[in-house]
């Protein structure tokens, strides 16, 4: 297997900067997801690692060797595309055997490997079909088999699950993860679906507008987002953002929003004052970090129910604080209806504060 390191990697298409100064290290055997909205440069990054695009600047290392000029065929990578890119004119068997034939392996060996891989992915009885005769899920398995049969050092996947239906996607998610762990192949997985990234990857690189936002584990992205973008991108429903200002009164620190005010503990207040570029801040609270109380609670935010969105197990209570719609997840058994007055209780240790100007997390 192989470790991958990207150093100041940059790719421009004309004047458009698709990937900007990306630094990333992927350990041997690690499963890393590149996560971001469409157009964030994640596929471009993947294609550069595959050798299909040439970096404008920067270096790609495979095990400490610069591979910038190595053609894709010599990189020994297996790749699965969003459209699967199966060769329509070849039978499934020949699709899987294609990379092996190009390696000029003996016929017997090719047959053995194709059958082995087909068995692993449970597509043995499809080997004589043409890709057009397969369902989406089957095509996906064939694409995986083709990438696996050549025993690659590095596995690249570009949104491989996004063309499957929701149910199959959940099943394949687990199977892919299991497969990766059992084979131990270094894997880079591109997706725009945060659930996919969080559930499958060891580490996640969040990209936006061609720049790396945060590179960390799922837990850390969730609990310690480094900026406003990551905080808003990870988690569903997304984090609530409320604009507020930092006020200092009698050695006490307050976050002052239009409808309410939150007192900060002294140490927190000092850190925020030190780091903030101005007094304009954004308060971030995840919907699951609020608790709804029907009776007044000391320090809680008073509000009223704007709309209810039941989810079965939970219900999302929407309240209006100033002009912002705030979402709160509560258990289904909460008895509230439209217009009821409620109190939102928060844990001061679970709030996030961002600088409005730099968008960076302050705590």
């Amino acid at each position, binding site marked *: 297997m192989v470790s991958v390191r990207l150093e100041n990697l940059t790719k421009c298409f004309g004047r458009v900067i698709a990937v900007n100064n990306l630094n990333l290290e992927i350990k041997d055997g690690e499963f890393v997801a590149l996560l971001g909205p469409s157009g964030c440069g994640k596929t471009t990054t993947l294609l550069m690692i595959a050798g299909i695009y040439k970096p404008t600047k920067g270096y790609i290392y495979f095990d400490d060797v610069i591979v910038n000029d190595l053609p894709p065929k010599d990189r020994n990578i297996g790749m699965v595309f969003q*459209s699967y890119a199966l060769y329509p004119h070849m039978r499934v068997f020949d699709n899987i055997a294609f990379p092996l034939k190009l390696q000029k392996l003996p016929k017997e060996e090719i047959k053995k490997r194709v059958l082995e891989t087909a068995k692993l992915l449970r597509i043995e009885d499809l080997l004589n079909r043409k890709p057009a005769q397969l369902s989406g899920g089957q095509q996906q398995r064939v694409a995986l088999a083709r990438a696996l049969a050549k025993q690659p050092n590095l596995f690249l996947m570009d949104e491989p699950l996004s063309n499957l239906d929701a149910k199959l996607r959940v099943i394949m998610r687990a199977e892919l993860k299991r497969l990766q762990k059992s084979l131990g192949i270094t894997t880079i997985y591109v997706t725009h679906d945060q659930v996919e990234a969080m559930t499958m990857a060891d580490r996640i690189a969040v990209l936006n507008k061609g720049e790396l936002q945060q590179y960390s584990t799922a837990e850390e992205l969730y609990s310690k987002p480094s900026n406003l973008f990551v905080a808003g991108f990870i988690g569903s429903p997304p984090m609530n953002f409320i604009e507020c200002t930092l006020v200092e009164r009698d050695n006490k620190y307050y976050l002052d929003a239009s409808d309410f005010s939150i007192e900060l503990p002294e140490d927190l207040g000092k850190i925020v004052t030190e780091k903030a570029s101005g007094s304009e801040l954004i308060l971030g609270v995840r919907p699951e970090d609020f608790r709804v109380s029907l009776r007044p609670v000391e320090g809680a935010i008073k509000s009223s129910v704007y709309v209810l969105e039941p989810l079965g197990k939970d219900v999302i209570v929407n309240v209006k604080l100033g002009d912002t719609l705030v979402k709160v997840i509560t258990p289904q058994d909460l008895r509230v209806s439209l217009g009821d007055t409620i109190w939102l209780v928060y844990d001061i240790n679970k709030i996030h504060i961002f600088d409005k100007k730099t968008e960076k997390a302050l705590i």
Partner: protein
Amino acid sequence: MKDEHITYKGIVLKAKIRRIIGAIIVYSIVCIPLIPIVLMYGWLIIQAFSGKPVSWLIPNDIPGGLSKNWRFLYGPITKGGTVLYRDFWRLVFNTLLLSLGTTGLVVAITSLAGYAISRFEFRGRDPLLKSVVVLHSIPGVLFLIALMYLLNYLGLYGKGFWTLVTVILIKGGLESPMYTWMLKGFFDAVPWELEWAALVDGCSRFKAWRKVVLPLIFPGIAAVSIFAFLSGWGEYLLVYTYITEAENYTLSVALSDLTYEFLYIDYGMLAAFSLFYMLPAVIFFITTQKYLMRMRVIAYKG
């Protein structure tokens, strides 16, 4: 409730009648222009096997025409007692050489050029594409004299067999631009991801073109081949202008010779000759029309 039902019955019936009348009108209109075409081909076929001149599609001395009309297959082609061509099969060979040569040349050029124009960004790509269309609107006859100068200068005019080979080059050159355009469309329809997959799987760029892209545009190549073949088969002007010896002529030139001096025209042989001349076109269209009709490249499920 019941009334509504009856009304719908009436509407359905009316729609049906309207549909039938519409079909009758459409088919009649389509059939009218077909009549002269059917009559001409009918005459051709019947005359080719009749010993005496035919009028109104009534066969005249059918078995008798067989040996008389088709005598060109095994003897010299004569008209009014003079020998026009000594060997018919030499003409067939020349024609096949010209049409197959043109096909090979055109396919070789256009499958590479079409790929390049479809896939590569290079300076002058757009002007090139546009000029192909503009140039195509200029009739090839205009180049006749200029090409004559060129052939003469290169010492290729009147060089018998080699001039025929040169005609293949000219023909390939004249035909290629437009077919490059046509194949470009086919190449455009092949998704990049397929080519990338081939590169990752271990192909060089050229191998990916040959093993993955080319098989996918087979219908396009087939269409180009047919058009190029038929255009070579039907070429008259270039052969007639540049080739000076009768033994290097092609069927089209021979056919036109049969129609000169109309007092001596042997209609039986003319029809038989024409029928033979028509054969490849008919065979080609019957066997390959599904490729000609299918302009979509691949059944790509994504």
